[in-house]
């Protein structure tokens, strides 16, 4: 089972994502955070196989959290799930250490396969 930490300040979004993963057999949302600080806190308590980060969050934004995660939890892949389709976001997120960048619009279609791909790559 792939344990996923979902970080998004919108509960509706988290609910949608949980629903999305429930459709799969091997993925489950095992942790939910509504801001960056919470993410870091949860990461230090429990173990996750993957972190799904939103960019727009109160307090530290996703990219900032990503930078911290890259230094403290280097081996856990992070996938950015963002509302922003602009290339600038994606390039900066990938440069900062994100394993993938997916816009929320495309989440339904691409997220699950993207996560599988990420995990496959990270295991190698």
């Amino acid at each position, binding site marked *: 089972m792939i344990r996923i930490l979902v970080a998004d300040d919108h509960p509706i*979004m988290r*609910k949608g994502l949980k629903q999305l993963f429930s459709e799969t057999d091997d993925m489950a949302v095992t942790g939910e955070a509504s801001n960056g600080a919470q993410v870091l806190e949860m990461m230090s308590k429990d173990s996750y196989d993957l972190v799904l980060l939103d960019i727009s969050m109160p307090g530290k934004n996703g990219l900032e959290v990503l930078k911290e995660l890259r230094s403290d939890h280097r081996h856990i892949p992070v996938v950015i799930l963002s509302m*922003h389709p602009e290339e600038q*976001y994606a390039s900066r997120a990938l440069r900062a250490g994100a394993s993938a960048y997916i816009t929320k619009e495309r989440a339904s279609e691409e997220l699950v396969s993207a996560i599988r791909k990420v995990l496959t790559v990270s295991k190698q």
Partner: protein
Amino acid sequence: VNDEANGNLAQHDAPEQTAVRLEMGRLSRLAWLSVPVLLATMVALRAADLRTSHESLNLLISLNFIFSTLAAVAVAFLMGRAFLLWPSPGMLMIGCGVLIWGVGSFVATLVGRGNPNVIVTIHNLCVWLAACSHLAGVSFSGRLQQAIGAPRLWVGAAYTIALGLVWLVATAVLAGWMPVFFIQGQGGTLVRQFVLGSSISMLVLTAMLLRSAKNGPWSAFAYWYSLALLLLATGLFGVMIQSVHGSLLGWTGRAAQFLGGASMIVAAFASARETSIASIWPGTVSGGRRQRYLVAIVITIVAAAVRLAFLQTLGMSVRFITFYPAVMISALYGGLGPGVVATLLSALLATFLWIEPAGHFFPVSGAESMGIAIFFINCMAISWITEVLRRAEVRTHKAEMQARIADERGRAAQVLQQSEAKYRSLFENMINGFAYHKIITDKNGKPVDYIFLEVNKAFEALTGLKRLDVVGKRVTEVLPGIENDPADWIGKYGNVALTGGESRFEQYAASLEKWYSILSFSPVKDHFVAIFEDITERKQAEEALRRSRAELEERVKKRTKELADSQEQLRKLYSHLQSLREEERTNIAREIHDDLGQALTALKMDLSWIAGKLRDDNEGLKEKLHADVDQVDKTIQAVKRVCTELRPGILDHLGLAAAIEWQAEEFQKRTGIKCEVVFDPEDIEVDTSLRTPLFRIFQEAFTNIVKHAKATEVKASFKQTNSSIILEIADNGIGIREEDLSKVGSFGLLGMRERVYPLGGKVTVRGIKNEGTTVEVIIPVTSGEPS
């Protein structure tokens, strides 16, 4: 008789005449003593009846020429000139008479060849004609004086006739047409005595007439000329009573005539002076005392030499013949002293050279002693008379000069008085204050005070000081404390008075509480004049103007400051509003984006999920769901667009460089204008406070390019140096015009400027026609932070 003729002039010269006559009174009367003295001498000689002849033709010619001819020519010239000025026939007659006498005497001795009868006849006839002419002249003087044309011709004709008469007489006598006048040894014939007697009478009468008519401009001339005529008459009397031609009596007569000639010369000089022709008479006697005595001695020695050299034929007789003229000339030239010296020397020389025993100074015989004594007395008398004449003449001259000077002084004083009255009036009525002062200095020559010498009315009016209170007083008395006035009045005026300069200045007089404009100068050393006017009102007006100007300036300064303050406030407000607006936009954008956007996204996910759950046979519903998903998608896009336009999230999430990069891409996508951005350094990032203004400027520049530039390419650069951040956007469009830059309506530019103002930055916009426009923003920073 002359009164009538000279009345007009006599009136004019009245003061001078009085002075002259007063001076002439006693002294010149003494000259007349020569007449009785000579007469007495002649009578004595006639009684002694010395019959020896001492004739010397050469001497006689010489003396005649000097004392008769020259004197006559001088008087004739004078008369001729007077006639030209003032055509009275009497003058011309006197001129003719004197010419006949002078030339006749000379011609007689010249053509007589030693024949006493010829000499005497010519001489006596000429004298007679001369006397007639004189008497007629004096009688006619003053009559028929008007309207005689061509006076020069008259003078020429008259004098020619006179000379013709002399020639006629000489010719007649030489031809023997005349009766015998003189027989040597017996004396004159009856004819001669008659001729001479009548001549003497006429001359005396003429002299008396002249004497009584000595008023008018000819007074001095008349005076001396009448004396000359009397002397002539006396001389004629002498020769009339002589029995031997060339006797001592004869020579005395001749001497009297020569003295008459000398008197004529005096008259001529007096007349020349009276008619304003420079006199040489007293002026020549200007040599020193020693010179005058020397001349006397030389003349006497020359006389002795002449007697020795030329008059050898006379032997021991007529020893004194050359000494008489020597004494006369010496006395005339040098006065009494030289005359006496000449007399003494002559007596000694005559005794030594000619009186037995020769070579001794003391005569043995009584007769010789008496001769010497008579010579001595004669010469002393001549010297004395000449001295008297000379002195009288000098005094007359002096008196005349004094009178003339007094007259001129009087006239000058009158002119001065008039002029002074004129200037006094000017002085008193001038509107400027005038004060004349004398400076007072201390021992070291430093000016310490000054005295008021004179002030005018305006002075009183302008200073409020009364003339009587200041004139003669020191300024420190009049205005106590003036020495301590910082204006240093005494020093200033002292400098003018001591250096003789001029000074103009405007000064406040503390003691009088007034302002004055002053011109000060020094006409005489240690004195100065101050001419001034009261300029207090002007100064007050100037002061008021200055004050009001200063007030105005102060007010303007205050207003300017207020304006600047209010501008500053306005800017702050603008800046605040800008940031508020930005904040609001950010908030709105975020709210819409996050809440609405997220909700829509979640909705889309749900719809997609539902669509996945539907059975494949429910095609209609599936289709409907897909359409809804599309619709939600479109709505999400619209929401994003709105949010981005409000405030691009990229600016807050990724920073300025990313925002610029994105904006450039968007711009290119939207407009098709090629856009290139260079970052230097590549990972450039600036302080968050700079993000918004720089991004907005960047946006504004792009907006302008789209609106106005007609560009096909844009090159932007974003640089950071040690001291500044430089953002440059350059297009290749038409180039902004200079006049558009300053347009009030160019709010875009104004907005850019206002955005960087709080940051201390600067926006420069340059346009080159058809080459493009460049917008450059420079923000100063210190170590990466905006200053």
